[in-house]
């Protein structure tokens, strides 16, 4: 396993594009270049969830993003110190019926559809969400 990128920044709406920009710039130079769009979409949803749910009572908190190469599989680990996920599990993700014109409920669907594997762990007051994407 080799580290590609490791950063820890405030989880704010304003920092999300900066995190995504850093990740995109780094992925450009790796064998995961073709996963860039999927990573941008999925990681944006994860970061939004951290801000809207994890730190819903706080003005701000930290989020750590780690990218690594696990024998050809891209692994993205996102850690925050906010509220635990409901039921300590990755939420269900059924795609809303398009004809119902739902204004929400797409986030986890996009994450799970774009990533090969999504796992969640609550440990020592932190949320660890691990995304894997096989090329």
């Amino acid at each position: 396993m080799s580290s590609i990128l490791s950063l820890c920044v405030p989880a704010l709406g304003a920092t999300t594009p900066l995190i995504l920009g850093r990740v995109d710039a780094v992925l450009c130079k790796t064998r995961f270049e073709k996963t860039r769009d999927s990573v941008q979409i999925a990681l944006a949803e994860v970061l939004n969830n951290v801000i809207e749910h994890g730190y819903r009572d706080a003005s701000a908190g930290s989020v750590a993003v780690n990218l690594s190469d696990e024998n050809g599989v891209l692994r993205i680990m996102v850690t925050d110190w906010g509220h635990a996920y409901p039921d300590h599990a990755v939420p269900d993700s059924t795609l809303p019926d398009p004809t119902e014109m739902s204004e929400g409920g797409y986030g986890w669907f996009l994450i799970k559809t774009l990533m090969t594997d999504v796992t969640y762990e609550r440990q020592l007051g932190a949320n660890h969400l691990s995304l894997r994407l096989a090329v």
Partner: protein
Amino acid sequence: MELSVDQTPHAQIIRVNASRIDAPIALQFKEDMRALTTEGEGRFVLDLKEVEFIDSSGLGAVVASMKQLRSGQKLELAALQPIVEKVFRLTRMDSVFTIHDTADDAGVDEAN
């Protein structure tokens, strides 16, 4: 959020002059769209040529913009860039909106 409007013979083209429609601006986008569609009838074409990125909040705001239209108004989309196209395709919202390759195409096409 920067929206500008061009009146063409067949449609009002609403250009999004921003590179992202995401969580921090989704609500403002929805309100700006409401303001722009309080009057007029017929086709509104949302030109997304400049928009490189959309998240689920932005998608929700575009859907809301469609839902808040009055009768006699219609919202279509144009110039979806790769990530935007992917989000609409994966969520199957591309089956709900009429989507044009460019805003110019949309201005020429007659409404179905």
